[in-house]
């Protein structure tokens, strides 16, 4: 494929937040916006307790729901494998946010070119611009424990398998989170516990309705009605068909 993947090995995360700050600097984010969120999991009772910090950001699905539901075609696949938002096309309709099976796409207040505050989809880009120039994403390059590693797609998958074998003794429930239902992802996780412990669905998938929307209704609809009208109609369809309600995000 010639594409890239990122592995987040939660068994190596010490919760230092360096990735968050490096990402904010790289991507020009205000202090209170972050592409990365964290949740910690404590299992067991004192003193037999295991603690795992989970660092979470957009998974960059191979078959991304957000890309399918976007009425503006503002979301696309980069040749690196990243799923990226074109903020100039985005109208802040929140379909991506409402339909992301992982609760990762977020619509937040951003600044447009004129410095106005506007609602725009805002999420991890897998540092697409940097990667295209051959540079590692900011989070991976600052991670001194190598809990975040970035590289050629297949090598990363192999690395994940190897790490899984290494940690199985300590974390019997360990697994690689790379859900088939969305065609696999470009950020994969080595989880220490079952996905549900981190508020993730084991069988996260692209809803059939999203496929229909993208592949049939939307192109036709756009042609007939124009994008803005479609955004309104699309909102109704999208919300009725596959809105699963608020996907709550793991806090600490």
């Amino acid at each position, binding site marked *: 494929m010639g594409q890239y993947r990122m592995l987040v090995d939660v068994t190596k995360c010490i919760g230092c937040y360096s990735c968050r700050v490096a990402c904010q600097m790289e991507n020009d984010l205000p*202090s209170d916006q972050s592409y990365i969120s964290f949740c910690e999991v404590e299992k067991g009772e004192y003193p037999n307790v295991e603690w795992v910090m989970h660092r979470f950001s957009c998974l960059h699905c191979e078959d991304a729901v957000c890309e399918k539901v976007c009425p503006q075609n503002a979301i696309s696949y980069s040749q690196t494998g990243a799923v990226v938002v074109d903020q100039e096309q985005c109208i802040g309709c929140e379909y991506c946010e409402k339909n992301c099976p992982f609760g990762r796409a977020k619509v937040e207040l951003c600044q447009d*070119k004129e410095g106005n505050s506007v609602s725009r989809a805002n999420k991890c880009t897998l540092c697409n611009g940097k990667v295209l120039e051959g540079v590692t994403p900011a989070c991976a390059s600052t991670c001194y424990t190598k809990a975040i590693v970035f590289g050629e797609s297949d090598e990363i998958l192999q690395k994940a398998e190897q790490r899984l074998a290494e940690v199985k003794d300590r974390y019997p429930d360990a697994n690689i989170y790379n859900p088939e239902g969305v065609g696999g992802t470009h950020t994969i996780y080595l989880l220490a516990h079952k996905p549900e412990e981190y508020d993730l669905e084991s069988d996260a998938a692209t809803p059939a309705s999203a496929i229909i929307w993208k592949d049939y209704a939307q192109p036709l609809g756009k042609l007939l009605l124009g994008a803005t009208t479609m955004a309104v109609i699309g909102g109704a369809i999208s919300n009725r068909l596959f809105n699963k309600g608020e996907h709550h995000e793991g806090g600490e």
Partner: protein
Amino acid sequence: MPDHMKQRDLLLFYAELYKPPGDAVYEVISHPDFRSELEQASGAALNDGGELPCLTSLKEEFRSLFSRSSQNGISLIESFYKPWTTDQTAALPFAQSKGMMMGDPAWHMRYLLEETGLNSSYDPMFYPDHVSVILELAAFLLEEQETDKFTLLVSQHLNWLDDLVEAIRKQNKDSFYLKLTELLNKFVNTFTNHDQSFDRIKEGSVC
């Protein structure tokens, strides 16, 4: 004295006013003709009269209003009132927030001071976009009769005086500085409110 020189003196007076007060500025203020000359040069009337503060209370008023050492110190620096930068490539998390020093206006002012050759005499204690620096540059442009440049300067670098007036009003509505700043704002507005002439300047002078 020709009008533009009167206006130059007006701006120099204001430049001095926004520095910690000393005898020089007080001498001007306490002159019996102060009010009339001020109103004449600025082409606007001062809001009500009232008593002039003495030098000591003027100093205290300045400190309590503008000193960063007093808790709510009002900034006299342009950058503080504007988005830090409109440069889309500036990748700091607060790039577009207000309230920071050395924003775009400061860099522009620094550039102007350097290019005009005024930087050598510019006191390093001051920020390049401190109101006094802007006023002195404006005064210099008047003196040189560079009207177009003067208009651009005051319309772009003094268009935050509304905010300054409000900030002073919020802290002390009876302040001597409030009245004078309101007057300065009126004066500046006579140059900035004429959009047409502003556009004409820009169009006519693309080089």
